């Protein structure tokens, strides 16, 4: 349900927005994107120092005592700044896995920015995250991994990959150094202008102690990760949509055609009003998704998360389409960040289950 922020949370929100306001503009984003990693490693170290990376984890897990709301605040701010740094891929996903699997040392390294982690879970042919085709087989004292993962967010720069695979026929989560033999990381550009990686494992060797989760624990860890990813994607999309909404509103107040500010034309006013409504509703649904993370895993939570994903993405996409249209020609240019926001939202709409996936899930869980 809906909540308001504690004073600490409000402070985090303000400090994030101040930092991003200072450090992020269109030129900076362009520069960061051009770096090898597809983002700025310096900024990553700075946000580690600012405590962002630990803010979403409880103290007993090595975090700073926060939870889903803190993550939401940061993801929304990052979305609003159209930030290139992979908070989703290198903080939310691996952080959730490490926290849930109890790998607190690794989590500490992630939080301090000492190591970069990424989760390799998505596969080209397997629709379910709980049924990977990737396998880990006994090999000497340890294990050898075979398989192929796609769209590993943050994978282009990760020191450590957290890999889902079948071990003895059951799901397991494995810790793999990205530089060991048999790991082939292929970086590619992504729709939103960033980078990600496809990764092949060809007899990549790990120790038995690198099995972070198995048995009944592993599916729970993966499910929790996906739940957090959905809420984070909602928050980030909302932030990006707010950026597009605000820029469009500014443009309507600035641009003059036919001797009037175009914001005086009633047809555009009504469309802007509908964008405003969409933004308000997306905000509500994003908060609902975050609040749902506090509930026990189960059908009810899955249904709420699916509804939030469908609803936030549909509304954010509406705002994205209208932002381009109401900007006219300049909305189509790479120079303005309208397209960047649009592409980021479109990307998030396809990740962690697209509309089809979540509609199917809602239908199957209908009460």
């Amino acid at each position, binding site marked *: *349900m*809906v*909540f*308001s*922020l*504690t004073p600490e949370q409000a402070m985090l929100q303000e400090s994030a927005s101040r930092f991003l306001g200072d450090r992020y503009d269109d030129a900076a984003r362009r520069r960061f994107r051009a770096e090898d990693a597809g983002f700025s490693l310096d900024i990553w170290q700075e946000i580690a120092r600012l405590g962002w990376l630990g803010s979403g984890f409880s103290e007993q897990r090595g975090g700073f005592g926060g939870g889903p*709301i803190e993550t939401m605040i940061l993801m929304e701010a990052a979305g609003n700044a159209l930030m290139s740094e992979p908070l989703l891929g290198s903080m939310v996903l691996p952080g959730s896995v490490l926290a849930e699997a109890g790998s607190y040392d690794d989590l500490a390294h992630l939080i301090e920015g000492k190591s970069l982690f990424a989760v390799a879970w998505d596969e080209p042919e397997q629709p379910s995250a709980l049924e990977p085709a990737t396998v880990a087989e006994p090999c000497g004292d340890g294990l050898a991994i075979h398989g192929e993962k796609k769209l590993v967010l943050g994978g282009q720069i990760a020191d450590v990959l957290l890999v889902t695979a079948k071990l003895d026929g059951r799901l397991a989560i494995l810790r793999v150094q990205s530089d060991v033999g048999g790991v082939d990381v292929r970086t590619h550009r992504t729709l939103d202008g960033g980078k990600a990686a496809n990764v092949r494992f060809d007899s990549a060797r790990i120790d038995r102690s690198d099995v972070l989760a198995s048995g009944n624990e592993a599916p729970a860890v993966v499910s929790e990760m996906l739940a957090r990813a959905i809420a984070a994607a909602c928050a980030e999309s909302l932030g990006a949509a707010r950026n597009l909404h605000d820029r469009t*509103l500014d443009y*309507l*107040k600035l641009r003059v055609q036919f001797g009037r500010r175009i*914001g*005086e034309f*009633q047809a555009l*006013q*009504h469309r*802007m*009003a*509908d964008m*405003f*409504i969409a933004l*308000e*509703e*997306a*905000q*509500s*649904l994003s*908060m*609902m998704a975050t*609040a749902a993370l506090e509930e026990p895993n189960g059908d009810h939570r899955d249904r*709420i998360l699916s*509804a*939030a994903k*469908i*609803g936030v993405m*549909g*509304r954010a996409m509406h705002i994205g389409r209208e932002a381009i249209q109401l900007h006219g020609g300049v909305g189509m240019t790479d120079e303005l960040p309208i397209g960047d926001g649009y592409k980021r939202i479109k990307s998030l709409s396809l990740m962690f289950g697209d509309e089809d996936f979540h*509609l199917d899930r*809602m*239908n199957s869980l*209908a009460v």
Partner: protein
Amino acid sequence: MTTIWTPELRAFRDDVRAFCEENLPADIRLKVLAGVPLTRPDHMRWQDILAGKGWLVGFWPRAYGGCDWSAAETYVFQEETTSSGAPWLLPFGVNYVGPVIYTYGSTDQKAEHLPGITSNEVFWCQGYSEPNAGSDLAGLKTRAVRDGEYYIVNGTKIWTTMAHWADWIFCLVRTDAAAVPQRGISFLLIDLRTRGVTIQPIKSIEGDSHLNQVFFEDVRVPARNLVGEENKGWTYAKFLLGHERVLSAEVGKARRYLRRIKRLAARNGKNNSPRLKDRLSRFEVDLLALEQTTLRVLGAILAGEARGHEASVLKIRGSAILQQISDFAVDVLGTEALSYDPEWLRENAGMPLEEIESMGVVSEALYTRAPTIWGGSNEIQRNILAKHALGL
């Protein structure tokens, strides 16, 4: 992390639910679930029950007979009663004129009019719109000319919901023709039994006559029935419109409609249609968005942070969603919907649910074309958002 769902509020919700289960008359509930238009006695019987419990004007201050409910309690009360199948609580006295009187009225007016509302004895209606002043209320032309201790009222009001059942009407009237349109308007209480008042029902497209045109011909209204100051009526009207719109996100009613669609679909063998399932899931997404937004607005109201335009968001979305759901129910009925006869429906209102429901669904769907028009059309609401929320 705070939410509006305090333990007290949850307890109150359970109380309301239990109260409805015990006290809502079965025949009224049946009509509501079936979508059959209610009669005046139906409304009054249920409101008497609420008045008996002290809940009819729950959100009013205790000083005037209310329970001092917070916005959250008011919302919970509305949602729970609606969801349980209680009739729409007629807002004209309780939500509209009552708060205007206890906020702006004189001591005498409070003493004269508030008890009739809290006890459900006086039936009010609202005289705002005129044939040439619909969206543009400032253009209204009904005149009230001061004549000693009286105002002489001439003109006409239209779309006065349930005026044919009402005892009193509160009106916006023009008291200064020379002033710019929004000035010169006053807020007047008029006894409908006064000589010169004529009420003419208007049949609407579903075949029922809840709407009326009210004509005033040299109607003498005691000057003491003027609320607040002369020519300041616009202020009180705006105050009232804000009250009206907060109520417009009827999530409970929409959920009730969705439950009915599932029942109808099961009856027609459509309940496994993937298309139907998708549609229901999408409605559920829209309702969650509306519900969560309503809760956020309530949170803002409780925190004193509401900016005022939020009500327009709820009005636009609430009315549109309800319209889509009730129209979709007709599609689920299919050709069964084509056998429709509002007279038969009125005459057979007491029959079992299955026998009358399909006509009730059609009646409701036709009637539900109105919420996007009334209470300030959705076009007006978008103008409000553009101006007040967006600064355009």
